[in-house]
């Protein structure tokens, strides 16, 4: 029987040392990812949302072991990837792909599209002959909506959307099970973003891919993901189902609620209502606040929030919240989020 969990993350940590001056290592660290545990299920899109510096990109790099962790475990299909030798790691990497935000800087400008796509085949020893490799490249190009005419082009000759299609092709040409997508549409215009999102959904269905989809854009998140994790300063503060909970506005961590209320989202009918805005700025991950990391910005914070880190509790089946007082959010913010999401849904359904 195939297990439903593809990626299991346990108490994952990554601290980056800060060096000041020449060669001088000081004793402080950036707590980029600080004790994250979650599960990504086979075939789903797990969305990870949060603002810049919350550690979401570091998290993606850890899942592929592109960087080494400070602590914790990642089990990929039951294999602890941090215990693997270089050779074993390379073998398992064939089953993982990654797509970055800026295709311009992630595609080698001196390589033709053909060579870019051939590389992963060579690295993993796929395709026995030159001809077979070419066929594999052509096949994947067609899957991402490009064609033979693009084979000998260079990245700079393509539009941003086409470049991102090449990045996606490169990530899936080895027929992986899992692809980490790190802000894949954030640099793109709306109409191109729509094309790429449609493409990613189509490819996922066709190749039964599992996605980790990272974005700061909650509208993209609520479209593309099946479950969502919200990150704040290296911690996951809420995990929930997208369609039944996030999109209905049923969120119980104050940060999630503020994020959703801050996102400008064309709900034109709601204009003129008093907006709820979260005060302050994200604190530095070098010396993160004590207790709950959101407490300095949280208008509902109490003494306990300053002292004690909130435990992760399952408040409904599959819905996890790391907050001492989720019922306060439920009373004070959730109704506004629900109302807002309802208004956006109306626009989506074309009801005016």
């Amino acid at each position, binding site marked *: 029987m195939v297990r439903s969990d593809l990626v299991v993350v346990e108490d994952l940590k990554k601290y980056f040392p800060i060096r000041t001056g020449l060669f001088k290592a000081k004793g402080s660290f950036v707590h980029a990812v600080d004790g994250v545990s979650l599960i990504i299920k086979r075939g789903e899109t797990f969305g990870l949302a949060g603002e810049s510096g919350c550690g979401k990109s570091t998290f993606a790099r850890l899942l592929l072991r592109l960087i080494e962790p400070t602590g914790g475990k990642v089990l990929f299909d039951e294999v602890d990837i941090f215990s693997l030798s270089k050779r074993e790691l390379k073998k398992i990497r064939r089953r993982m792909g990654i797509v970055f935000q800026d295709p311009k800087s992630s595609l080698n400008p001196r390589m033709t599209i053909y060579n870019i796509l051939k590389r992963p085949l060579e690295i993993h020893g796929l395709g026995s002959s030159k001809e077979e490799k070419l066929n594999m490249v052509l096949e994947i190009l067609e899957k991402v909506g490009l064609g033979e005419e693009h084979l000998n082009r260079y990245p700079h000759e393509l539009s941003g959307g086409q470049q991102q299609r090449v990045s996606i092709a490169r990530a899936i040409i080895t027929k992986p099970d899992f692809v980490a997508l790190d802000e894949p549409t954030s640099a793109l215009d*709306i*109409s191109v973003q729509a094309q790429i*999102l449609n493409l990613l959904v189509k490819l996922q269905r066709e190749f039964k891919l599992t996605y980790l989809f990272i974005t700061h854009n909650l509208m993209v998140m609520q479209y*593309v993901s099946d479950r969502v994790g919200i990150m704040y300063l290296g911690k996951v503060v809420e995990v929930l189902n997208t369609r039944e909970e996030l*999109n209905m506005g049923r969120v119980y961590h104050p940060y999630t609620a503020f*994020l959703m209320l801050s996102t400008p989202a064309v709900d034109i009918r709601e204009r003129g209502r008093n*907006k709820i805005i979260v005060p302050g700025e994200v604190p530095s991950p070098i010396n993160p606040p004590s207790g709950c990391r959101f407490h300095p910005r949280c208008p509902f914070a109490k003494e306990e929030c300053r002292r004690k880190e909130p435990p992760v509790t399952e408040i409904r089946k599959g819905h996890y919240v790391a907050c001492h007082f989720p019922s306060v959010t439920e009373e004070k913010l959730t109704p506004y989020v629900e109302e807002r999401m309802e208004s956006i*849904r109306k626009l989506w*359904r074309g009801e*005016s």
Partner: protein
Amino acid sequence: MRNGTLLKIEDLYVNFKTDEGIAKVIDGVSLDIKYGEVLALMGETGCGKSTVAKSILRLLPKNAEVRGKILFKGTNILDLPESELRKIRGKEIGMIFQDPLTALNPVFIVGNQISEMFKIHKLRIKRTILDEVIELLKNVRIPDPQRRYYSYPFELSGGMRQRAMIAMMLAGRPSLLIADEPTSALDVTIQAQILKLIMDLRNDYNMSILLITHDPGVVAEMADRIAIMYAGQIAEIGPVRDIFLNPQHPYTKGLLRALPLGHKEERELENIPGRVPNLIEPPPGCRFHPRCPHAIEKCKKEKPKPVVVSNEHFVFCHLLRGG
């Protein structure tokens, strides 16, 4: 607040001479901004929205050729000598950009950069310049302004830098603010703060705002009217509610239906086929016609004239004529 038109752009054409040929970047744009109004210019990369903004301030590079009229309080900015222009640019018309770090000078403290505004424009002041600057920093809600006066730009967060830029812009008490993607580089919680600040200041200072953005969400929150641009032409212009709830141009419709406002299991996002045209050899007639699912013969030949949908709502599309 005064009635009437603050800025009127009439038949603006901008061409750029490039090595490959002449790029026809703006193709006959006309629009006006009323006193106290927020007009958003929305469109995708390369549609010409920033070029329009730069034309108003005459900040275009030397290879640009500009035709048409830009009337600011009745005076054609394009005809003004440089000395007269300086009295308007940065004073009567303020500007903020997407990335305040490149707009602020990294080697001077923020306070001095704002003070400069008072000196350059010989602004009348009631107190010392230091007090005036601290007052401005207070107005843009920078905490601890006495201390922040002495901060270098790199010592401020992205949100605080944008506030400092806004403070600098406010020094001249402009009647028009041109905001070019003012929050696109900021996180959403900070973006919400800055958008609210800009709207509060618009009331306090009686400013009109020309908002340049690619983000329909920002438009929906800020604008009174929107002009949708495509490839150097205006596709549709009208009050914000009309555009969002009753869009008429095929491009506007496509753009709004491309927004991910629901879940993938419910429907696919609208796909506008093709890509933005090359403006050295732009498509004749309506520049959107090669991508338009409803294009007719006329669209390839004639540039569409505005069709009135309702009060203030105009669509540049042949398909609506008489319909």
